[in-house]
Every structure is written in C-alpha cells, then in structure tokens.
C-alpha cells in the first residue's frame, strides 16, 4: 500500500511506485505482491509512506534508491528493514494521531490540500507543492478543448450555489461568439455564517489563480476579475500579493511560461450586499453600474461583462481545477457519489462542540458531520436540524440525519448544497423563529427591483413575526405556502427565487411547531418570548428567596420563607428564576 496523497506524491511516491514495480518484476514477484496506491495516511511529513500488508509494516521517508534493497530483503528474504521503518515517537504517548481524531479523520483535503502547510504569501512554497505544474502541463501539452473535456470528465460542478457542471459552462463560453471573453472569480460570499471562500483564499490564493489561468486558456479569455467581499481584508491582501508574485514570475501578463498565452487579472472589491454575489448583479457592479440583477437568459456565458461572453465561477470551483489537471479526471471522479464528484468545503457553525471549516467527500452523511466531525451537540443536547445553503437553502431535520450529502439528495429534501454554510441547531431552537430570521435577512437584502420579492417577502415576514408573537391565524400556513410558491416563480433573480425556501422547509418538517404557535399560542422550544409565561407553583415554593434576589427586573414579590409570586407585567422572561430555583417551583408555559 503505497501512499499517493498529495504530500507523498510531491515527495516522489510515484517514482517509488515505478521502482517497486520494476524490482518486483525482476524477481518475478509481480503476481504475488500487489502495489496498491492509497490516499493520504496523515503522516505526510514522513512520506513517502509504504505500508506492507498483512503484517502492517510501516515504512517511511522512502527514496528510490532504497527500493532495490527493500524488495530484496523484505519481499524476497522476508526480512523487514528496520532502518526504514516508522518508529512511533513514544509508544506510551497519550497524544493521539491527528488522523484518528474525529474532526480530522473524516476530512479529505483536495481544495484545502495546502492548508496549514504553506506560507500563502510565498509563491515558492506553492510551487514546491506542485503549484503551477498543472498550468505548465496545460499550456505545453493540451489543447483548450482537451482541458474542457478533462474538466467535464471529472464531473466537477459549481461550488457557489446552483451546482452547474463546470466543464459544460466553459464549453458554452468557449463556443460563444465574440473576440473578447472574460472570466470572473466570485469571492463575494455573502451568506451569513459562511467563510469557506475566505479560508481558501487566505490559505492558498495561488490555487485560485492557477485555476483561473487554466480556465482562461480553455475558454479563450485574456482578462479576468476577482470580485471579493470588502469585509475580507486578509484575503484581499493575500490575493493581491499572490497576483504580484505571479506577475513577477511571468505567470500573469504576456507570454505566460514562455508560450503565446496572455492573461491579465484585476481585483475588485464587492459592493457589500448579499445580492452582489448573484452573477448578473456582480457583473453589473463590475461594469460600474448599480448592482441590480437582470433577467436570464441571456446567460453571462453568452452575454456578460460589457456584453461579452463571460464565465463566472466560485472560488472553490476554481481551486479544484489545478488538482484535477494534476491528478487526472479519473482520480477526481473516483471521489464522491454518482452525481456529485469530489469534495465540498463546509463551514460548520452552531451548537456543536467543534466548529470550523471542513472539507469532506461528497456523499458523507449529516450524522458524520454532526457527531464525528462536530463532536456532537454542545451540552449534550439533542440534534434538531441543520440549515444548509444559508438563507437560500432549507433545513434537514434529525429524521434525515443519514441522508448522504450531495446536490440531488439535498435538493429533494428541500435544502440546497449552496456554497457550503451549515448551521447546526439543537432542541432549544424554534424553527418558526429560524425561518423568520432567514427571511428577515433576505427581505433586508432584496434589491427592490421586482415586486414579488420586494413586497412578497415583506408580507411573509409580517405573517411570521405575527406567529412568533402569538398573533398567528389558522390560515397563515396556507397563505405562507401560497405566497412562497408565487415568489419562487415570479422573482427575477435567485435571491427572490430562493428566499421562501427556509419557510417552506420548516413548514414541511416542523408543521406541528407552527401549529403550536398558532393554535395553542405556545412555543415548544420556549424561544418566542411573547409566548412564554413564568409562574411559581405555590405548593412547591418554600420561600428560599433566591429567585427574588436574582430577578433582574424586580418582578418577583415575597418575603423570605413565604410563597413567592411573579408580577407578569414586570417580567422580561429572562428565565433566571427558572434556572436558580432549586425546588422546581418555577414553571413556564
């Protein structure tokens, strides 16, 4: 089992493979002993790694020169070579192996394969990990059409939201009529709670540049833009630095790598609104116009920046490209599920023990993300649901926790892959309030151009707010569903088309919670303040006076050793009395 992870490959494990195979042939052992390439072992620093099964002997730091000796001694004479074996630093060491820790164990790094390993502000370190090798390969040995075929064969789909097949998009743009073409990197990332793209740019900016260069060559574009969110100063600094360094090396500009390929790149700072991440709005903002979306078609691939064919992809989509070219479409297509290939970066936030940024293979289950990677719910509470795809997405309830995560299964469950924001909610979360929160975000961000989005979301928001205040009416659920349908069908852009999704998916899975709010004026998760009322049970209260001392609003009356009472008008529903009472005398409903 020879490691063929990125780390080992850049330490020449593929040369070891050739040497091994030819040595084995020499002794006629090729049928008896199989050379199997494996994924990373998590010991890249000691690579190349070779594990000999069934004995589990672990060789490290192999060099091509070691191989003849190794094959002769170990495989022919049966004497493992101690000198090349891995010696655990300290057998009794209680410190676990990184790749055995849940958070890291389930992750597989493709896009983030350089994270934490290189200095992102030093282009040489990127080059030392096979950087710009794919660009060189493409420019010197592949026709643009071949590059497109390779990306198509890999099955790569857009990581920015809709999941459109990337190779196909490139092909359309390449085929579009026009002498000038443009490419754009969408680094606007406006989804609240999401920071995947920020992290990719911060930890490996050259991967994005190299992906764009390869795309530009394939599409036939000579100019490109990186449109980056203004709130990302560090990412902005690193991408600018990367562009400078690439320019000095002649990897941007004219006659790149001595070929006749030219490409120029500029960085633009986002105008700050969520809708600016939508492609037509983004393009309009690049042109110096008001960032308002327009109707599609025509799609940007045919008529984009300044009316010219324009290909727009997300940061993570671009960063996948050099890895696909380097390792081959077949390798990439071997990761993931039938319809969704490769990995996806998620930012996991919310009620989890471990939060952060993870890269996992497509097809992983929500259970693995919540329990293995996330380390389970904080305070050992129950998992209730996960919001996927941010304000454009929907929730996946606990009952679907074993759903494999890929584009199709998420869509059929009423959520979306989106850009990879994943918010985990526990039993104390009120789903009506969540829907209200996301809708208030999109309603706030609506550009106001088309009435269904502008007025419709406002009306829906009013209804939801009413429900959380105990003013819900029987017919509200139906009205919400009807309006959602209408807005989805008639809004001009993706913001409006998807804004009702959080409402629809919470109604789909948590209708009983809506009904409890509307019919019983009750918030089962006890979040909606207007619907809770604190009371002291006279037969349980022993007059210890603790709640009296703790109430921040002087809403409790009673002398020590007497039964206490809550003055409802003064109570701000902070729950303090409930928390401090040791005698279970405080109740809420």
């Amino acid at each position, binding site marked *: 089992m020879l490691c063929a992870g990125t780390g080992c490959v850049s330490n020449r494990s593929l040369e070891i493979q050739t040497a091994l195979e030819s040595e084995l042939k020499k002794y006629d052992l090729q049928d008896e002993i199989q050379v199997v390439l494996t994924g990373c072992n998590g010991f*890249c620093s000691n690579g190349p790694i070779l594990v000999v099964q069934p004995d589990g002997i672990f060789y490290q730091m192999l060099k091509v020169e070691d191989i003849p000796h190794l094959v002769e001694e170990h495989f022919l004479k049966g004497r493992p070579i101690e000198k090349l074996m891995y010696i655990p630093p300290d057998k009794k060491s209680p410190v676990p192996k990184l*790749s055995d820790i849940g958070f890291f164990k389930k992750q*597989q790094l493709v896009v983030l*394969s350089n994270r934490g*390993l290189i*200095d992102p502000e030093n282009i040489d*370190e990127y080059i030392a990990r096979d950087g710009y090798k794919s660009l060189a390969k493409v420019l010197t040995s592949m026709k643009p059409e071949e590059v497109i075929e390779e990306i198509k064969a890999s099955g790569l789909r857009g990581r920015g939201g809709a999941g459109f097949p990337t190779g196909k998009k490139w092909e359309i743009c390449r085929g579009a009529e026009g002498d000038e073409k443009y490419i754009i990197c969408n680094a606007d990332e406006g989804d609240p709670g999401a920071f995947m793209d920020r*992290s990719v740019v911060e930890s490996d900016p050259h991967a994005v540049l190299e992906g764009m260069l390869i795309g530009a060559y394939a599409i036939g574009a000579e100019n490109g833009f990186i449109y980056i969110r203004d709130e990302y100063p560090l990412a902005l600094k690193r991408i600018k630095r990367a562009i400078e360094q690439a320019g000095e090396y002649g990897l941007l500009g004219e006659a790149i790598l*001595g070929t006749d390929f030219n490409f120029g790149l500029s960085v633009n700072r986002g105008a700050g609104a969520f809708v600016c991440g939508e492609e037509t709005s983004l393009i309009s903002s690049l042109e110096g116009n008001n960032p308002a979306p327009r109707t599609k078609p025509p799609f940007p691939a045919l008529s984009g920046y300044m009316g010219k064919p324009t290909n727009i992809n997300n940061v993570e989509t671009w960063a996948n490209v050099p890895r696909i070219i380097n390792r081959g479409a077949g390798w990439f297509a071997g990761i993931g599920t039938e319809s969704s290939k490769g990995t996806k970066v998620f930012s996991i936030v919310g009620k989890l023990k471990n939060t952060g940024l993870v890269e996992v293979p497509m097809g992983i289950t929500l259970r693995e993300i919540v329990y293995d990677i996330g380390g389970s719910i904080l305070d050992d509470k129950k998992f209730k649901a996960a919001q996927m795809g941010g304000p454009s997405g929907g929730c996946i309830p606990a009952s679907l926790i074993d759903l494999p995560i890929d584009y199709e299964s998420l869509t059929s469950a009423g959520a979306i892959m989106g850009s990879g924001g994943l918010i985990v909610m526990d039993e104390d979360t009120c789903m009506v309030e969540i829907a209200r929160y996301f809708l208030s975000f999109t309603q706030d961000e609506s550009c106001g151009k088309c009435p269904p989005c502008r007025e419709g979301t406002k009306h829906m928001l009013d209804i939801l707010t009413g429900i959380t205040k105990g003013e819900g009416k029987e017919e509200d659920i139906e009205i919400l569903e009807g309006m959602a349908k209408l807005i989805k069908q008639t809004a001009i852009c993706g913001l409006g088309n998807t804004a009702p999704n959080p409402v629809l998916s919470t109604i789909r899975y948590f209708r009983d919670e809506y009904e409890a709010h509307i019919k019983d004026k009750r918030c089962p998760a006890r979040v909606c303040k207007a619907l809770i009322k604190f009371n002291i049970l006279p037969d349980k209260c022993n007059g210890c006076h603790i709640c009296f001392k703790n109430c921040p609003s002087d809403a409790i009356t009673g002398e020590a050793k007497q039964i206490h009472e809550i003055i409802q008008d003064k109570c701000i529903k902070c729950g303090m009395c409930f928390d401090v009472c040791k005698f279970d005398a405080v109740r809420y409903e």
Partner: protein
Amino acid sequence: MKLKPSDLDKIAQKMRSVTNLRKGTSRIKITVHMGTCGIASGARDILSAFLSCVEEEGVSDVLITTSGCAGLCSREPMATVEARDKPPVKYVDLTKEKVKRIFKDYVMGGKIVEEYALAIGSERVL
C-alpha cells in the same frame, strides 16, 4: 524573473530544501496558523511569543513561519511544531505562557507538552 516550465521544478527543489527539515539546515519548524479566525483569537501574539523565545534562547536552527488555518476555529490559536524526522505536533488554545512552556519543553527539551497538544501527524490530503 519570467519563468519557463522547467524552472518550476528548480524552484520546487530549492524551496523543499528550505521548508523540508530533512533536506534543510533547520532542526525545527514552527508554523503559526494565521487565518482571519486565528488572528481574531490572538495568533499574532502567539507568533511574537515564539519569536521572542527564539531570541531569548539565541537559537538559530528554529524556523518560524505562518500559514493558513487548520479549520478548527473552536480551538484557535493553533500552531504546528515539527522537529526533523518526527511527525508534526499540533498545539491548540495557545497562550503566551503555553508558548513559553512548549518552547522550553519540546523545542529545547524534545518532550511533547501533552496537556496542550491536540494530536500528532498531518491532515489527510488526497
């Protein structure tokens, strides 16, 4: 300098001799993880604490560098300490005091500070 395709390999080899401990002159490499989230939780202080340790001890074979984050936001600030021929050790939830101790015990003394260490080894890259 404008590169030709063949120059990439040369740069890669030259660079590996600096960053790869086996081939270079450094005995230990310390990487402080500096993404937005690490910096927000104090990674800059951690970096300067390591730098002042180097100064105080007067050592010249310790390479201090920065990199992007390891993604585990809830345990930032974080640093990876890698000694030659040993797997890297990741330390989490760092403070200046912890840095001093790690420097003294592990960098100078070769003993892993178990209480602060999250794990040894590297992440899986495909």
